[in-house]
Structure formats: structure tokens, C-alpha cells
């Protein structure tokens, strides 16, 4: 108690120095939490865009499908399975049957990825309808094909022409079909643009000779935060010896890696920032220790144990750090909240390329208490480390020498 009181009063002993130190911590925390919130927000947004572009945050397959990507791993989508998978927090079930095929047009052939989809469910998650540039969108009962513009160009096909598909279907059956091209869609992603052919689900199942079967069930999620909950529930309810449940991080390791690389870069920036701040604080501590050594000498002379004195100084420095960190958090809260509600909107070239992918060029900040907690704990750790210096000094302090000056 006494140690706290001493520490607290000592903090306010040199007000200006305390304000300057606290302010430097405040700005470090403010800057770091703001940057971190923006960066995480940008990545969350990016991931949401990329993930919902096609894959979804989570998918259910027959066990082993993802590794092989073979139509032979298509499975019967029962109502009960559909129900279990689609229960909250999932916001929708997006079943697909996907496999490669050879597509032929007037004079050309090319390899394509045929995706049989439920048009409405698909649109809800991926916004496929908005990518339409010609013709009309698929309907569940229709027989038409929706072509990526790159595929149409390669094959020399337009709306109203006929597309021919040939491949090996489910368990080796010969699959062949003719489909009227009813719509063209343009994807910002070149990969999708040069290979996607969408068919209504039933039509595709018929084509592959896989009635009632799908190769994947993507699950639509509103919030990335719900992934863990949904995953846990699916693991409980589904027969995991028959099915595999994968989240986007497992399906898109490249994206995870890109995010980690970028985040690691920022960690270095924060590290340097805090290092600079730490040096500043260390200067203050050095000065304080020097100025107070006479007083430390008196205290030890009149019977204060070194550990008591050391603790009091330790508490003082750590409290100073906490004050700065709390002030920094308080200052960041409104800033981060503001940029969450009013996302930074990019314009120009960058915005153009994002829009081409069908992404909104906005960067909302993430408001996550963990970000602030992390910054505060960096400051705490730094001050704890710095506080060791005066403690060591006090351990070796000779009162007579200290008081001789």
C-alpha cells in the first residue's frame, strides 16, 4: 500500500516529464492500434471478398475430395445433410457439382470447369448475377449455360449459340451434352474468366450422370467470426468418417500466407516504433534514477529494504506505462470506430482493379478489443523490461556513496 502511494506520488512529482512520457506512449499506442485495426480490417475485407468470390468461408465434401478433386467423390446431398449444414450460424447452403470438361464452339475447343449450381443460392453468396454482361442469369429449371467471357471469346460463342461439352462423368460414364448459351459473365479473376461454365445443378448432375449428387457444399456465412462455431457444430453433427469440413484457410493456404506475410511486415514496424518509444522512456528512467539516487540513499539509510524501494520504483514505471497505454487506447477508440463506420474508400487505379474483381474498394477498420489489448501489453512488457534497470541500480546502491553525490 505504502509502496503504491509512494509510486503514485512520484509519478506526479515531475508532471511535465510524466506528461511527455505518457504522451509518447499514447501516440505509439494510438498509431499502432489504428494501423493494426486498418490493416486487419483491410484483410478481413479482402478475405471476405476473395472467399465469397467462389469458395465460401467453409465447405463440406466427401472425405478426400479436396485432395483429389475428382467427380467420383460426388455424394448424395440428402435433405437431412442439407439441413444440418445450413443451420445457423450458416446463412445459406450453396451446393455444387464441379468437374472439368472439354468445351467446343464453332471452331475451337478448350478445357473448362463445369459448375452445376443452384442459381439463387449461388448468387446470394458470390453475387454471380451481378457479373452478367450479356443475356440472362440461369434459372433452376432452365437448360441454358452461363459462360465466363474468356471462355466465350476463346470458343467464339455468344448468347444464342450452342455449347458442346464432353467429359468422363461419375464413375467413368461418358458424358456429352449440348447447351444453348443464355448468358455471359465477366470475372475480374483471370482464372475464373478463362475456365468457368455454369449450368443449373440438375442439368449438370444429369450431364455427369450423377443424379442427386454434389461434389461440394459451400456454406454462406455473414461473419468470419462464426467460422469456428460452425466448424465445431459440423464436426459434431456430421459423420466425419464420411465427410470433410474445410474452412477457407485450409482451402486457400496462399491467401493465408499472403496475409501472414503482410502482417509480419507490420509487426516489424510496430517493433521499431515501440523500440523508439522504449528508448525515450529509458532516457527518462535513466535521468530519474540519477536524480533520485540521493533520495534512494536516504531511504535505505533510514531502514527501507532495497526490495521495498525497488518495488516502489518498479510500480511507478509500470503505472506510468499503463497510464500512457490506457490514454492511447482511449484516444484510439473513437478514431478506430470512426473508420469502421466510415471506411476509407480508395479511388484511382487501385480502386479500378478492385472493382474489376467485383470488390468494393473500401477499407473498413476492424474494431477488435484484442488489438488494443495487444498494444497495451506491448507497452506493459516494455516498461516491465525497462523497470529492471533502476531495480538493478537499487540492488547495488551504497547509501553512503549515493549521498556523497
Amino acid at each position, binding site marked *: 500500500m505504502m509502496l503504491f502511494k509512494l509510486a503514485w506520488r512520484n509519478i506526479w512529482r515531475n508532471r511535465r516529464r510524466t506528461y511527455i512520457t505518457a504522451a509518447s506512449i499514447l501516440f505509439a499506442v494510438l498509431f499502432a492500434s489504428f494501423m493494426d485495426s486498418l490493416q486487419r480490417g483491410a484483410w478481413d475485407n479482402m478475405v471476405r471478398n476473395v472467399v465469397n468470390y467462389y469458395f465460401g468461408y467453409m465447405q463440406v465434401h466427401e472425405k478426400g475430395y479436396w485432395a483429389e478433386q475428382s467427380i467420383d467423390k460426388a455424394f448424395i446431398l440428402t435433405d437431412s445433410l442439407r439441413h444440418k449444414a445450413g443451420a445457423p450460424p450458416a446463412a445459406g447452403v450453396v451446393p455444387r457439382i464441379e468437374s472439368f470438361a472439354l468445351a467446343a464452339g464453332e471452331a475451337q475447343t478448350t478445357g473448362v470447369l463445369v459448375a452445376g449450381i443452384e442459381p439463387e443460392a449461388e448468387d446470394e453468396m458470390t453475387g454471380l448475377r451481378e457479373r452478367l454482361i450479356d443475356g440472362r442469369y440461369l434459372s433452376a429449371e432452365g437448360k441454358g449455360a452461363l459462360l465466363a467471357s474468356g471462355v466465350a471469346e476463346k470458343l467464339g460463342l455468344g448468347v444464342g449459340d450452342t455449347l458442346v461439352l464432353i467429359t468422363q462423368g461419375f464413375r467413368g460414364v461418358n458424358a456429352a451434352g449440348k447447351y444453348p448459351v443464355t448468358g455471359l459473365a465477366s470475372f475480374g479473376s483471370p482464372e475464373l474468366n478463362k475456365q468457368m461454365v455454369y449450368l443449373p445443378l440438375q442439368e449438370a448432375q444429369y450431364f455427369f450422370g450423377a443424379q442427386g449428387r454434389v461434389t461440394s457444399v459451400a456454406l454462406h456465412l455473414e461473419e468470419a467470426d462464426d467460422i469456428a462455431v460452425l466448424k465445431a457444430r459440423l464436426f459434431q453433427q456430421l459423420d466425419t468418417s464420411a465427410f470433410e469440413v474445410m474452412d477457407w484457410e485450409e482451402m486457400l493456404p496462399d491467401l493465408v500466407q499472403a496475409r501472414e506475410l503482410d502482417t509480419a511486415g507490420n509487426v516489424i514496424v510496430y517493433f521499431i516504433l515501440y523500440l523508439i518509444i522504449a528508448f525515450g522512456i529509458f532516457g527518462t528512467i535513466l535521468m530519474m534514477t540519477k536524480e533520485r539516487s540521493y533520495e534512494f540513499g536516504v531511504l*535505505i539509510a*533510514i531502514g527501507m529494504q532495497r526490495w521495498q524501494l525497488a518495488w516502489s520504483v518498479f510500480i511507478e514505471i509500470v503505472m506510468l506505462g499503463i497510464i500512457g497505454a490506457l490514454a492511447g487506447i482511449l484516444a484510439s477508440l473513437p478514431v478506430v470506430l470512426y473508420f469502421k463506420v466510415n471506411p476509407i474508400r480508395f479511388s484511382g487505379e487501385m480502386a479500378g482493379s478492385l472493382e474489376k474483381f467485383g470488390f468494393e474498394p473500401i477499407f473498413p477498420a476492424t474494431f477488435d478489443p484484442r488489438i488494443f489489448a495487444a498494444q497495451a501489453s506491448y507497452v506493459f512488457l516494455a516498461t516491465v523490461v525497462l523497470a529492471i534497470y533502476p531495480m538493478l541500480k537499487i540492488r547495488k546502491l551504497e547509501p553512503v556513496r549515493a549521498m556523497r553525490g
Partner: protein
Amino acid sequence: MAVISTQGVEKIYNPGKIPVKALKGVSLEIAEGEFTAIVGPSGSGKTTLLNIIGGLDRPTAGYVEVGGVDISGLSDNQLIDFRKDHIGFVFQAYNLIPVLTARENVAFVMLLQHRSAQERNARAESLLAAVGLSDKMDKRPAELSGGQQQRVAVARALASKPSFILADEPTANLDSASTANLLDIMYRLNQEEHITFVFSTHDQRVIDRAKRVVTLVDGKIDRDEVRG
């Protein structure tokens, strides 16, 4: 009975490099209730002797007993506790903790001794009253004059109920009125409460008030006179 007893105390500073022989065999006994001045020219070893008696420094050779305890046998931490419970210190200046009030400064040592809050308060108040500072109890050191600060320091030194008080040039930074005032207080405490005081000084007016004067010259006791 002697509260302080030294036998052939020697102190050599910088034994390795250029040794300075600050004390060259000081044997001294100080009895309970004494009011003794240690005097001598600058550099004669007064501070060194007081530091050794007070357990702030260790002699190079010789023997120091305080209250019947051979303090050379105590570890560093034990010495700190010994000082806390048995010795009151008044230094030349800057005795007080700047962030604590006069009352808190006096109570601080008792806090270190784990006395109850009630006892701390009562004793701090009565001690500050005894040094004539009843009206300044809640002032911080910076708000007090040098003389007042030294009086608080005397009150603080008394707070732990020590066996004696060591004061190294307690009046060196004071004007003559404050010096006289501080001396009156010390003298009265000695007369009425039988508090033992050992102090060093250069000031002839202070020397005149002492009941015993030990003169150091060049690290040795040159004279030791007791006055009527």
C-alpha cells in the same frame, strides 16, 4: 552503560589504488543520554566515523558495538533492519522524501516497522508538536524552510524509538536563528526524554552547547572533553 562502543576503528578508502586513511584507530565509548559533538577540521574523518557507527559503512579494521550488538557480523539486509529499529539519522540536508508531507515523512519509518495506523498518526503528531511544527504537518518538504525541514528530520529520526540519534552537520545549511532553534529542540529532547545525540559540526555555537566534545584530527581522537 555504553550504547556505542568502538575499538581501534580504522578506515581506508580506495585500498587498491591511492589509499586514503580516513580513520586511524578510533576507540570511543558513548553512554546513554549523552549529548556529544564530534568536531575537527575538514577531512578529519567525522563523517566517516558517524557512518561507521551508524552501520552505513564498514570499518577496514576494528570493532563496533551498538546497543551491545557487534554490527560487523550483520549482513547487508540485517544492517538495514538494524538501522531502522535502533538508529535515528539526521543528515546535513535533503533528509525528507519530497513527495510525502511532514506527517507522512515521520510516519514512514513506523510504517516500515509495521506499526498500526493509529500509533503512527498519534506519534507523528506528538513528535511534530515536540519540534514545534504542529501547524505544518501536512506540508511537503518543498513548502518548509531549511530549519523546519531539519526539525521534521529530527522528528522522523525519533519516530522509530531508536537507541540514539546520529546527526552529521545537521545545522550546516541553516542560518543562525534556525540553528539555535534546532539546537534548543535537540537539547530539550536530550534533557527531558534522555535521547542520546551524537552530532558532528563545524559551528562554534553548536560546539558550545555540547556536553561532551570529541575532537578528531587526521583520523585520530585528539581530545575528548566532558563539560560540567
